[in-house]
C-alpha cells in the first residue's frame, strides 16, 4: 500500500489522462468537452512537472514543452475527432511537433525528411479520406468508438508501465542527467563503434555523421531497406484494383 501511495504522482495523472481520453472519445449524444479537456490538461501538467528536465537552458525547455505538449494535445484531438478530415489535419500537426522534437535532438536532416515523407503520405491519405469517407456525410462508425473503456484501460496500463520504468531509472540515477550523460548506468553505456571512433558532438546530426553511420556501419541494413521498399512497391501494384474490375 505504501508503494502505491509513493506512486501517486504517477498514478493520478494516468487516471486523469485516461478519464480525459474516455470522455472525449466519440459517442452518441453530448460529450463532456470541458471536463475532459480540464482533466487532460491537468494530467499533462502534472506529468510535465514530474518528468521536467533540469532547468538551466530556458530556451531549450520552452521549445521542448511547446513541441512535446503540442504533440500530446494534438494527438489526443486526433484520436477523438469525429470527422476523419479533421483527424488527418491533426495528424499533420502531430508530425510537425515531432519534427520540432527531432530538431531539439539535433537531427535537422531527419526533421526535413519526415516533413517531406509524411507530407506526401498525408496528402494522399487526405485525398483518400475525402474520396471514400465524405460521400454520404458523417458515417455511423465515426460517431461511435468501439469499446472505449477496454481500450483506455489497456492504454493506461501500457503507459503506466512505461512511465514507471522511466521514473525508476530517473530516480535511481539522479546525477546522470546533470553531470555526464554517458556515465553510471550500465544499460545506457554507449557501445563503442567498431573502429573505436565516437562521432563528436559537433558531428552529431550533420549529414556527414549520419551518412557515415548509414553507409558505413549499417550498409547491409540499407540494402535490406531498399529491398523492402521494392517488394512493397511490387505488392502495392499487384494488389491495386485493375481498371477492368471497374472503378469505385
Amino acid at each position, binding site marked *: 500500500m505504501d508503494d502505491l501511495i509513493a506512486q501517486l504522482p504517477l498514478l493520478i495523472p494516468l487516471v486523469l489522462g485516461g478519464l480525459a481520453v474516455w470522455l472525449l472519445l466519440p459517442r452518441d449524444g453530448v460529450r463532456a468537452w470541458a471536463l475532459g479537456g480540464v482533466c487532460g490538461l491537468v494530467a499533462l501538467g502534472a506529468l510535465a512537472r514530474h518528468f521536467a528536465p533540469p532547468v538551466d537552458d530556458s530556451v531549450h525547455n520552452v521549445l521542448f514543452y511547446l513541441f512535446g505538449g503540442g504533440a500530446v494535445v494534438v494527438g489526443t484531438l486526433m484520436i477523438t475527432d469525429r470527422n476523419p478530415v479533421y483527424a488527418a489535419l491533426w495528424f499533420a500537426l502531430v508530425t510537425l511537433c515531432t519534427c520540432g522534437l*527531432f530538431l531539439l535532438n539535433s537531427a535537422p536532416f531527419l526533421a526535413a525528411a519526415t516533413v517531406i515523407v509524411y507530407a506526401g503520405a498525408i496528402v494522399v491519405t487526405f485525398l483518400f479520406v475525402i474520396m471514400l469517407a465524405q460521400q454520404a456525410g458523417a458515417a455511423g462508425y465515426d460517431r461511435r468508438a468501439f469499446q472505449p473503456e477496454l481500450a483506455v484501460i489497456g492504454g493506461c496500463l501500457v503507459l503506466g508501465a512505461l512511465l514507471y520504468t522511466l521514473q525508476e531509472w530517473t530516480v535511481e540515477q539522479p546525477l546522470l542527467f546533470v553531470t555526464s550523460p554517458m556515465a553510471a548506468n550500465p544499460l545506457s553505456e554507449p557501445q563503442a563503434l567498431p573502429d573505436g571512433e565516437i562521432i563528436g558532438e559537433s558531428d552529431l546530426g550533420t549529414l556527414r555523421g549520419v551518412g557515415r553511420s548509414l553507409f558505413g*556501419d549499417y550498409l547491409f541494413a540499407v540494402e535490406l531497406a531498399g529491398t523492402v521498399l521494392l517488394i512493397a512497391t511490387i505488392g502495392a501494384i499487384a494488389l491495386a484494383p485493375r481498371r477492368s*474490375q471497374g472503378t469505385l
Partner: protein
Amino acid sequence: MTDPLPGQLAVGAILFALGAVGFLTRRNLILMMLSAEMMLLGVSINLTAFGRHHGNASGQVFTIFVLTVAACEAGLALVLILNLYRRRKSLDVQLWSNLGEPDLPQLAPEDADPPAAPPAPELPHLTPSGPLPKAPVGAWK
C-alpha cells in the same frame, strides 16, 4: 548540458499509448492506419533522444529505417483499404469481423448501423410503346 532524455522518452511513450488507444477504438480504416503511424512517430522520438544521449548517429539511422518502413506500410495499407472499400462500399472495420475464427467469441458491434445497401445494378428494360391498355377498374383485386 541539459539532457532532456526522460521528458522526451515520456512524450514518446504517451504518443505510443495514444496511438494504441486510437487504433483500438476508431472504426475507420484510414484513421486506424494514421493511429499506427502515430505510434511509429513516438518510437522515432525515442530513437533520436537516445541517439543524442549516447552521442552517436545510430538513433537517427534507425529513424531513417523507421521512415522507410512507414512509407511501405502507408502504401500497402492504402491499397488494402481501397480493395476493402470496393467490396463493402464502407470504411467500417467491423464489417470484416466475420473474417475471424467462427468458434471465437464475437465482439458484437453495439447497435451498428446496417451497411449501406449496394446500388441496384442497371438492368436493361424495354421502352413502353403503344397506347396504355385499358384495364377494368377494380377487376383484379
